[in-house]
């Protein structure tokens, strides 16, 4: 079996008394697309900073490309592409210049950097924006430019921290398409997200993280199979009636989850379950049958929803 490109054993990061990361163990294989899914403050970004060799661990073992980030930070970072949560493009420079300058940090010859900059502008669909000011770009374009910048050194691993947070749906889909292409090219991707649809689209395998610990690990399909039912029936009876109806619904499906605005019934067959409920004389204002998602997995594992 080939060596993992990232290997963490009991990884810990403490800030004072607070353990932001509290014993994570995982491996990422070359070419794999690996996700860290969890709510804000779960320790995802801290983990990413440790993988990115810019934050030292408090405990545990961490090996990136067979090297220890504490000792070989610059060497490891020369093989990474990093797309941080907050854009840190250089607003004093133009779009193409951002790529040129960044490529030089890796010690790449000017000619190589210039060629790659043009290729990457095309990849990021920014060919005609090369001379534009960074501030003139839309949020989605800035993200794409940041990804292009992260690819300037042809990295072994691309780290993406919340790549589509704050983008509108169209911009997100363009970005997913780009990232999917990278995945197809065999690039190793590590991404954090609190969007389950993003994780389902992009991750081969993921860990669900909460309070700095791993709650579950597997492929999106595996996790859904293991922790949720095939379908979910969403019922809305109105905020004031949800609690009361929930008691009547006890025993429906595999499991019932009461949220402030709606009731979720986990079941293999949503339509059949809805029929049974209506036959029992309960009439929801709205009902919706959908496939289980990672959101449901998360809810099951932590009792909380991902976005609060």
């Amino acid at each position, binding site marked *: 079996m080939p060596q993992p490109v990232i290997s963490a054993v009991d990884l810990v990061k403490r800030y004072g008394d607070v353990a932001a990361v509290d014993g994570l163990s995982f491996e990422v294989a070359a070419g794999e697309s690996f996700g860290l899914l969890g709510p804000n403050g779960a320790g995802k970004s801290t983990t990413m900073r440790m993988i990115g060799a810019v934050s030292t661990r408090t405990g545990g073992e961490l090996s990136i490309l067979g*090297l220890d980030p504490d000792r070989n930070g610059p060497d490891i*970072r020369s093989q990474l592409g990093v797309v941080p949560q907050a854009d840190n493009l250089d607003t004093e*420079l133009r779009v193409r210049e951002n790529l040129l300058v960044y490529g030089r*940090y890796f010690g790449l010859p000017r000619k190589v950097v210039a060629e790659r900059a043009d290729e990457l502008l095309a990849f990021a669909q920014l060919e005609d924006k090369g001379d534009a000011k960074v501030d003139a770009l839309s949020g989605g374009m800035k993200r794409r430019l940041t990804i292009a910048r992260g690819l300037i050194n042809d990295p072994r691993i691309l780290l993406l921290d919340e790549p589509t947070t704050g983008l509108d749906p169209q911009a997100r889909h363009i970005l997913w398409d780009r990232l999917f292409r990278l995945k197809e090219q065999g690039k190793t991707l590590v991404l954090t997200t609190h969007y389950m649809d993003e994780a389902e689209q992009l991750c081969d395998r993921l*860990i669900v993280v909460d309070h700095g610990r791993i709650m579950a690990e597997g492929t999106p399909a595996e996790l859904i199979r293991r922790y949720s039912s095939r379908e979910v029936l969403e019922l809305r009876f109105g905020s004031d009636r949800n609690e009361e109806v929930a008691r009547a619904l006890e025993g429906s499906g595999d499991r019932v989850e009461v949220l402030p605005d709606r009731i979720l019934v986990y079941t293999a067959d949503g339509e059949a379950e809805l029929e049974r409920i209506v036959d029992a004389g309960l009439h929801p204002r709205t009902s919706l049958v959908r496939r289980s998602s990672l959101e449901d997995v998360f809810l099951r594992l932590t009792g909380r929803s991902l976005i609060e």
Partner: protein
Amino acid sequence: MSDPRRSSRGGAAYRDPVVTENAATDDARQALAAGARPRRFGAWYVAEHRFRVMRSYGQTILVTGFGEPLIYLYAMGVGLATLVDQNLGLEAQGVGYLVYVAPALLCSAALTTATIEFSYPVLLGYKWNPTFSGMHAGPISPGQIVDGLVISVVVRLAATVAIYFGFMLLFGAVPSPTGWLAIVIATLTGMAFGTLLMAYASTIRDDTGQLAMVERLIVLPLTLFSGTFFPLSELPWFLQWIGWISPLWHGTELARVATFGYPEPIWLSVVHVVVLVTMAVAGWAWSRRIAARRLAS
């Protein structure tokens, strides 16, 4: 040492930790090879970035670079000098006011330029447009970021000061053949104050106008009370200490020795050099420490 078998993937084959130590894998070898150049030249790449940014305000640099010496040398050295030379009898020392004040203006210009380059760009890089964390996400180390800033500012200062010195020659303000040393001295003066300012700017997390305060309460008084326009001995005794802690006073006095053989005991010249170098190195080292702490939290 934790048991590797406690991995979440159970049976996954873990590499022998000894292999990691020796970096014997292809991945590791490739990383070490790629990291070699940035490890060696990282600071120069950072300087390259700074030069590119400076180019975006290149016009300002050129206009001030040529305009400032012209205006100041004319106003102080020619205009004001007509009053001073008549009244203070500086001719007694064998030089006119122009010659006396020119080295001070030179060092003062270096100080101002260093103040500009080491204040807002530093705050910008850490906070407003965190390009430093971008560099650090790549192979550049925090220390290299600081070194790169220092390199770029030394170059900018030397260029600014050299132009200034050219005007001094044109104005006939440099009687001594060792005058060119003033270029080195002024650059050092700028760095002595500048690196300390960089260190301070690196500590600012919430900008509440501290840098504007530095300019008004430190840079301006330094410019006035560092034996620049009149000898330190003309100041009341309780203000003379400003000169002794002022890099501008040490630089100016030294530059005077270089440009017109200002009479000063040799031990004092040595003190000037020691103070300036100590300040520059201390500020530099301090900035590196802060950078390491701030970027690798």
